[in-house]
C-alpha cells in the first residue's frame, strides 16, 4: 500500500512530464480502440448486408456457375433439384436464374446480367414485390447505381436483348417498376431483375435456375448432384480477407503510435532514475531493498498506463460513442471497392476489444517501465547518496 501511495505521489508530483506522457499514451489507447472498432464495424456491417441481400443462409450453385467467369452463365443452369422443391414451395429457399443480356440506354450498348427471382420471396432483403405487378410489359427492377449509370427512371421502358437457351436472339421491352437502394453492389451494378417465371419462359429454360439461395434458418443442407453448396464461410471469404488486410494495415499505424508513447515512457523512466539517484540512495538507506525500489519505479511507469486509460476514457467514451451512434462518413469512391460498405461505417466496440486493448497497453507500459530500472539492481546505496550511478 505504501508503495502504491509513494508511486502515485511521485508520478503526480512530476507534473507536466507525467501528463504529457499520459496524453500521448491515451491518444494511442483511443486510436487503437477506434481503429479496431471501425474494422469490426466494417466487417459486421458488410457481412450483415451481404447475407441479407445476397447470400442468405448459403447458396447452391449450378456446377458450371462461376461468378468470376461471365462465360459460365451461358451454360450454368439446370432443373431445380427435386429435393429442394418442397423447401422452395415453403419459401425456405429461392431459385435465381441468371443470363447475360444487353440494353441500349441512350442508344449505347451495355452488357448486363438479367436475373429472374420470385416476387413473393422473403429470404433476401430485396424489395422484389413490385415485380408481382403484371401488365403487358415485363416488370423489371434495378438498383440506384444501375439507374444512375443508365439514366433510367421508374416507369421507363427499355429494350433488353438476350439469347434463348438455343442461342437465338430475343429482345423485348421491360418496364422499370422499382428502383431500390442497396449497399450491396453485387445485386445492383449492371443487373436487371425480373420475375423468374417470365425469365424462364423468355429464355426457354422452364423450371431451371442458376443458383438456389437458402433461408438463414435452414439447418439441413442436403447433397444435390450437379449443384455445389456454398456456405457463408466460402461466400464471405473475400470480405474476411479484405478486413484482415485492412486490419493489418491499421495495426502498423497503431503500433507506431504505441511505440512513440512507449518511447516517451522509457525516456521518462531513464531520466527519472538519473535525476533521483540521491532519493534512491535515501530510500535504500531507510531500508528499502533493491527489488522494492525496482518495483516502485516500475509501478510509477505503470501508473502512466492506468492514468492514460482513465484520461482516454474521459474523452474517448463520449467521442467513440458519438461515432458509433452517427457513423463515420465514407468517401464516394468507397462504393467502387466492391463491398457493401454503405455511406457510413458504424464502429463496433466490444467489451473484449476494450478490455483486451487496456490489458495489452498496461502490460507493454509495465515492461517498458521495468526495462530502465534494471540499473537499480547494481546500485550501491553509498554511491547513490553521493549522486553516483554504479
Amino acid at each position: 500500500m505504501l508503495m502504491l501511495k509513494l508511486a502515485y505521489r511521485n508520478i503526480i508530483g512530476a507534473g507536466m512530464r507525467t501528463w504529457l506522457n499520459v496524453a500521448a499514451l491515451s491518444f494511442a489507447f483511443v486510436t487503437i480502440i477506434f481503429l479496431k472498432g471501425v474494422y469490426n464495424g466494417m466487417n459486421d456491417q458488410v457481412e450483415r448486408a451481404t447475407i441479407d441481400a445476397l447470400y442468405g443462409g448459403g447458396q447452391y450453385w449450378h456446377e458450371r456457375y462461376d461468378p468470376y467467369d461471365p462465360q459460365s452463365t451461358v451454360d450454368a443452369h439446370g432443373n431445380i433439384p427435386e429435393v429442394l422443391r418442397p423447401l422452395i414451395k415453403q419459401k425456405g429457399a429461392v431459385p435465381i436464374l441468371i443470363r447475360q443480356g444487353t440494353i441500349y440506354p441512350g442508344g449505347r450498348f451495355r452488357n448486363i446480367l438479367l436475373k429472374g427471382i420470385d416476387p413473393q420471396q422473403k429470404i433476401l432483403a430485396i424489395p422484389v414485390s413490385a415485380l408481382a405487378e403484371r401488365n403487358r410489359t415485363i416488370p423489371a427492377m434495378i438498383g440506384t447505381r444501375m439507374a444512375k449509370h443508365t439514366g433510367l427512371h421508374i416507369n421507363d421502358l427499355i429494350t433488353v436483348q438476350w439469347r434463348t437457351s438455343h442461342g437465338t436472339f430475343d429482345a423485348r421491352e421491360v418496364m422499370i417498376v422499382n428502383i431500390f437502394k442497396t449497399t450491396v453492389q453485387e445485386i445492383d451494378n449492371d443487373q436487371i431483375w425480373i420475375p423468374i417465371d417470365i425469365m424462364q419462359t423468355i429464355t426457354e429454360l422452364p423450371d431451371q435456375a442458376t443458383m438456389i439461395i437458402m433461408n438463414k434458418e435452414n439447418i439441413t443442407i442436403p447433397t444435390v448432384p450437379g449443384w455445389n453448396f456454398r456456405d457463408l464461410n466460402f461466400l464471405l471469404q473475400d470480405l474476411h480477407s479484405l478486413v484482415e488486410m485492412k486490419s493489418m494495415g491499421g495495426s502498423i499505424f497503431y503500433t507506431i503510435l504505441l511505440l512513440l508513447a512507449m518511447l516517451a515512457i522509457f525516456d521518462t523512466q531513464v531520466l527519472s532514475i538519473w535525476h533521483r539517484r540521491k532519493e534512491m540512495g535515501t530510500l535504500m538507506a531507510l531500508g528499502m531493498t533493491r527489488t522494492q525500489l525496482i518495483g516502485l519505479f516500475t509501478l510509477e511507469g505503470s501508473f502512466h498506463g492506468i492514468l492514460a486509460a482513465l484520461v482516454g476514457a474521459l474523452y474517448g467514451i463520449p467521442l467513440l460513442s458519438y461515432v458509433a451512434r452517427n457513423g463515420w462518413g465514407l468517401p464516394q469512391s468507397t462504393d467502387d471497392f466492391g463491398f457493401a460498405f454503405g455511406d457510413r461505417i458504424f464502429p463496433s466496440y466490444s467489451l473484449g476489444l476494450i478490455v483486451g486493448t487496456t490489458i495489452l497497453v498496461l502490460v507493454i507500459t509495465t515492461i517498458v517501465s521495468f526495462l530502465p530500472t534494471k540499473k537499480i539492481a547494481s546500485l550501491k546505496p553509498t554511491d547513490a547518496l553521493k549522486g553516483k550511478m554504479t
Partner: protein
Amino acid sequence: MRLRFYSFCIAVSSLSLQAQIVSGDDILEKVDRAMNSKTRIVMSTMVIHGRRDIRTVQAQSWQRGTSDAYTEYLAPAREKGTKMLKLNDMLWTYSPSTDRTIMISQHMLRQSVMGSDLSYEDMMEDPHLPNLYSAVTSPDDTVNGRACWVLDLSAKKEDIAYYSRKVWVDKVRYIILREHLFAKSAKLLKTVDITEVMNVQNRWAVKSAVYKDVLKEGKGTEFNVLSIKFDDVLPDHIFTKASLRR
C-alpha cells in the same frame, strides 16, 4: 378442240413453272448460288459512324467458301497489322502491338468489330441462307428503283442467331438489296441496306452497304468494296494460325 386442249396444257404448265420460280425457297437457292463463290479476295473499307467521330478502316480479306476467312487491316495506323482468322466456328485475332494471337471467346463474339455495328458473331454466321431458313414470299417491292421479291425467312432449326429475316431480292440480278434481322419476339434488331452493286467477272456483287444495329443510336456502319476477285486459287497456308504472325 385438240388445239384448245394443248393451249390449256401449255398455260397450266407455264403457270406452274412461274409458281415454281417465284417460290420463296427457290429464290433463296438462286440468291445463294448468285452470291456465293469458291473463293474471293476483297479489298474493302468500313466507315464507322461513332458518337464523336467517323473512322474509316481498310482491310483485305481472303475467303474460302463460307467457312474460312483471313482478314488483314491496312488502315488506320492504329489498326494496321491487326489480323483475323476464321476457321469454321472459331475466330482468332492477332494484334501487332501486343504480338499476341487471341482466340475470341464465345462471350466476346457478341462484341462489335472495331466499334462497328457488326459483331464478330455476324461475321462468323453461315451465309448459306437456304441451310438455315425456309422462305415465303410477300408482296413485291422496289428498292433503289429495282423490282424486288420480298421474302420472309423463318428459322429451320432452333440454334440460330436470328429467328426470322426479311430480305428484298433483286428480281433480275438475284442479289439481296435489303435485309432486316429480327429477334424471336419479332423485334427488329439489325438492318442491311445495299446501296450500290457492281458487276465483276459476270456476277453481281455488293459494292456499298450500310449495316445498322437498330437498337443502337447512330448512322450505322458503311461497308464499301474497293475491289473483289472471285474464284482465284488461294494457298492453304493463308488459312493457318501461323499466317497471323507473318
